[in-house]
């Protein structure tokens, strides 16, 4: 299956509204790999190279060099076999509807993808000796291998599983690179984090609806027309970030069903392309890892980010990170307080 995927004018700063297309590095029919430079963009602040978010073929060039393109509008269209795009930053507009096309592009010869540094690292990895030897021989980073052995020890079959499916490895690497790049873009933003213990039971649907409602009451913090909650879902392909639009305004049962079906789809490596853009905030649930908190990091164009952590059988830890350009410390405290109350 291949999909048409529009590569749009990215939003590279909070004030950016348009960008000028300087030139293309590719032409129609070119085979590109994830990370290849597609085109260069000039804004009022910086010039930037835009890279392919996935492997694929250039189907058409939509804009022309010299054009001033609004953020979120397509610059070129790619055909890709990659269904999971970890995240589509840079736009709060709907992408051009992704259309499944019948004709598959020429088969892409798998080549090793140089993985970006993993975002979340477990520095102490437990692995049986042979798994270490095997991983070293094959160049597998054990920190990226899912442990299924006793006491979370990586076993031989875990290393084999990580290695046997090059498509999986490749998609993992692509997803990581994408997330890392996004986080990289927000590194210079002044941020602050807040943490609170909350005694409540909630599922993901309840949580994201409550969080959206809290944000809805603070239109002064909104930089987008809508509220889109990205929920990080771990799969063997890496992290997927499907976006739930205005979850506080949908019927609760419908939302619960949508979250459940999307989670399942993401675990199988398939997220509808339409759900990969438009995030205004991100939620990461760490409870299944028995972790209490990780510093929630801001994704581009998002003012807030939240993690849910495990504290005890009846209590959870909720952590909030804010962009200090939009909220001050007081706002952050109020937001977290409102979220706890809403839960």
């Amino acid at each position, binding site marked *: 299956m291949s999909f048409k995927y529009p590569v749009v004018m990215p939003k590279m700063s909070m004030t950016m509204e348009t960008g000028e297309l300087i030139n293309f590095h590719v032409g129609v029919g070119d085979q590109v790999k994830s990370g290849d430079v597609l085109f260069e963009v000039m804004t009022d602040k910086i010039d930037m190279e835009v890279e392919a978010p996935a492997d694929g073929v250039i189907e058409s060039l939509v804009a022309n060099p010299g054009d001033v393109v609004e953020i979120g509008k397509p610059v070129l269209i790619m055909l890709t076999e990659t269904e999971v795009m970890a995240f589509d930053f840079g736009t709060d507009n709907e992408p051009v509807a992704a259309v499944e096309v019948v004709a598959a592009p020429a088969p892409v010869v798998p080549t090793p993808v140089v993985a970006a540094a993993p975002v979340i690292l477990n520095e102490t990895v437990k692995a049986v*000796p042979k798994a270490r030897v095997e991983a070293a021989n094959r160049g597998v980073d054990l920190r990226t291998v899912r442990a299924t052995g006793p006491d979370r020890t990586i076993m031989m079959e875990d290393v084999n599983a990580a290695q046997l499916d090059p498509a999986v490895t490749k998609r993992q690497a692509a997803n990581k690179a994408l997330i890392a790049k996004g986080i990289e873009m927000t590194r210079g933003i002044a941020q602050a984090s807040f943490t609170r213990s909350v005694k409540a039971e909630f599922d993901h649907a309840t949580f994201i609806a409550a969080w959206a409602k809290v944000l809805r009451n603070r239109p002064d913090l909104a930089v987008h027309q809508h509220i889109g909650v990205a929920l990080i879902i771990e799969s063997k392909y890496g992290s997927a970030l499907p976006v739930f639009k205005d979850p506080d305004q949908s019927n609760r049962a419908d939302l619960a069903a949508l979250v459940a079906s999307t989670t399942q789809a993401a675990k199988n490596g398939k997220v509808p392309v339409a759900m990969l853009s438009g995030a205004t905030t991100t939620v990461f649930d760490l409870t299944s890892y028995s972790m209490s908190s990780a510093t929630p990091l801001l994704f581009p164009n998002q003012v807030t980010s939240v993690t849910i952590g495990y504290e005890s059988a009846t209590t959870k830890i909720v952590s909030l990170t804010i962009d200090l350009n939009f909220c001050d410390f007081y706002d952050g405290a109020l937001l977290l307080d409102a979220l706890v109350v809403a839960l």
Partner: protein
Amino acid sequence: MSDRMLTMAEAVREAMSIAFDERPEVFLLGEDVGIYGGAFGVSGDMYHRYGAERVLDTPIAELGIVGAAVGAALSGMRPIVEIQFSDFTAQAMDQIANQAAKIHFMLGGALHVPMVLRTPQGSGTGAAAQHSQNLEPWFASVPGLKVVVPSNPADAKGLLLAAIDDPNPVIFLEHKLLYKIPGRDPVPEGATRIPLGVSKVVREGKDLTIVATGIMVNKSWEVAEKLAAEGIGVTLIDPRTISPLDMQPVFESVEKTGRLMVVQEGPAHAGFINEVIAQMAGSSTFGSLIAPIKRLAGMNIPIPYAPQLEKAAVPQIDDIEAAAREIVKNWR
């Protein structure tokens, strides 16, 4: 090949008899080894066949018995000492550890001590803490001693003949419970020797390597047989000589199976089998392990008198089976 099935007591007696016939300097001494035929009947009728000059009943004085044997060995004889229970070697330890083991080295190699000390060891007879110990590490930790732990009649015969030939003092530890049990393999006729310091691969399987000593070889064999019926393959290795120790077959096997379990009767703490683990951990085979090394050993307690507690104090077939299943199932 013979198809004679002997007990270990019969096999040991046969080896001693062959040595008696081959060499006039070989003789046996110990408490009740003569007219009574040995506390466990091992020397049997040898007193009647070879006479009181070669089968000597001694007073109850272990230090004196071993001292006499060391002196005889230095004078050109080849004594075989029997100590009724290995626990009693504590009485004779100065002669064993300080004299027999050291004289060759103290005298610049001028003299040898070609002595064999045979002694029954182990629990399972309801004889309580002072008659049931497994003291393998006591002897294995003394340089200058060779230590043999046979697990079956055929090995006992061949190893004892080699031990009697050996110019060094050899401690030969026989498990009481094996004396009356026929082995799985026939005992060859004649003076077939089995070299000291060569481990035996008892059976081969693909999933797990078990290294066991003495009676634990037999228990592990039962487990291997049961698991084989379910498609779980066990390679069972019997070092036979615990000092010097031949690790090569263990390394070769673990390179194939990736899993190692070690089983001994004696207490886990500072036990002999820990040496196998230590050598594995420091070897290049370490990188072939796909599972933590599993140790099954006796509890760190004196052997209890109550039969149920006595059984519970050392690994039994069920324990070995459960541990083997666990390691194969959980570590893939």
